């Protein structure tokens, strides 16, 4: 099977003054949950935006399932940005209809089930919901797709710990051998147990690409402990 993601010499500079991502080379296979970890401003969100074609690379190449980011890759990538990207005047059920209209791999049934589990009123307008509930709605929409690559930027940052458990179990339930899940977060302790692999990004460069088992057996540390060591201020 093709790697789900390949990056070659990927570089992104803003205003020729600041390089957010510098010559990143990476290959990721399917069937794993990958943690994209790094301190603020390390280039995680820039990397995620490049994968999703909302930023144009300064140099380098991205391949998702062997294709450059475009219409075909958007059909198989499910993206959760770190902000509210839905039209807030819409009702929750209208957002489901919207996703259903545009994504062939979207499951209305799964979305309604998850909304029901989290007791979210489908007739409520998004602007009347709390920030945390909006994030839950977005995550539900994203996870209700049968995608090949899920890219989640801070999926649990704004939700309460009880909902976090539900979200993490949702992520696990959607995980299959065909798909890969890339999660960017600061809350390493919360997600460490579900990760198969971690990528450490520092100043726009990849400084570690290892499985969680390798870190535990070879370095005798948890991912959280290693992160604190590598990124100590």
């Amino acid at each position: 099977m093709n790697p789900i993601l390949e990056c070659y010499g990927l570089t992104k500079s803003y205003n020729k003054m600041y390089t957010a991502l510098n010559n990143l080379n990476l290959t990721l296979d399917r069937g794993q949950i990958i943690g994209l970890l790094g301190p603020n401003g390390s280039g995680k969100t820039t990397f995620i935006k490049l994968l999703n074609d909302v930023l144009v690379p300064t140099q380098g190449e991205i391949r998702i399932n062997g294709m450059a980011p475009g219409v075909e890759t958007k059909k198989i990538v499910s993206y959760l940005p770190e902000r509210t990207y839905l039209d807030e005047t819409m009702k929750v059920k209208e957002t489901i209809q919207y996703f259903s209209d545009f994504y062939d791999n979207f499951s209305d049934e799964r979305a309604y089930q998850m909304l029901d589990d989290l007791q979210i009123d489908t007739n409520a307008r998004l602007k009347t919901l709390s920030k945390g509930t909006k994030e839950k709605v977005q995550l539900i929409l994203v996870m209700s797709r049968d995608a090949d690559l899920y890219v989640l930027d801070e999926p649990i940052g704004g939700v309460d710990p009880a909902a976090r458990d539900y979200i993490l179990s949702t992520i696990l339930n959607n995980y299959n051998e065909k798909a890969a899940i890339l999660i960017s977060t600061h809350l390493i302790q919360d997600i460490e147990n579900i990760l198969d692999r971690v990528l450490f990004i520092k100043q726009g460069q990849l400084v570690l690409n290892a499985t969680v088992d390798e870190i535990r057996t070879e370095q005798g540390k948890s991912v959280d402990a290693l992160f604190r060591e590598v990124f100590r201020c």
Partner: protein
Amino acid sequence: MLSKLIKYDMKSLNRFLPVLHLFILLSSIMIRVFITGRIKPQTSSEQTDFLIILCYVLYFTMITALSTGTYLIAGIRFYKNMFSDEGYLTKTLPITNGMHLLSKTIAGSIWAMVNMCFVYLCSYVVIWTPYIKSVVDENKDDILQEFGFVGKYAGLSFSTVLLILLLFSCFGAISSIIMIYASVALGQLFSSHRVLGAVVSYFVISTLISVLSVVAMALLGSETRLIVTSGSLEDEFNLVSYMIEIMKISAGLMIITSVILYVATHCIMNKKINLI
């Protein structure tokens, strides 16, 4: 996919524009019922004349605000949907940028044309009172003569002229939507203050088009004909003929600039957009 996109784009515009247009239509009906509909020759006095002028000024301000509001809302929705936080969803739909642009241009143009029809309708309601109609009917021949509906233009009926004007205005409305979208897209090329960049781009494009119009009219002799004929050769000046000439030049310019701006917007959306 295009029909689905248009459906959602229309939906987002429909939140504001019908209310705005209905308000203006109701206001026009009120003006007609309470003011312009009551104008009669015997009621003429300094106070009533002043009131009527004031009423027309107010009405035209309202109509201008309506059109400006329509274009502004279309521009804001384009900006928000493509380049603000909502852009993170719009840009990640499995749809080409070309399709997005086409859908938004169609939706914006539909509303711009509806707006234009409303402007005509409201103007009809406010201005075309029984009194005005009777005055026009009584002096129809003189008015037609004065406006230049003579010779080869004598056969043009009022409804034909109105239809030509309406079509031309609708065409202008589409062109304006394309220009506004191009300004918003150009604003995205600025590293910061992108909304301000869009406003500056709009004024730069408008100025360029105005300069081009003047140059085109000068080259084709329309400007000089107006100056010369409005002076010593006034008798030879024919307003209808002049207006048709101006409309031809404007239509030509509109087509050229609209195509250029549409292609430019498409290129920017494909190659230059970085959502921050």
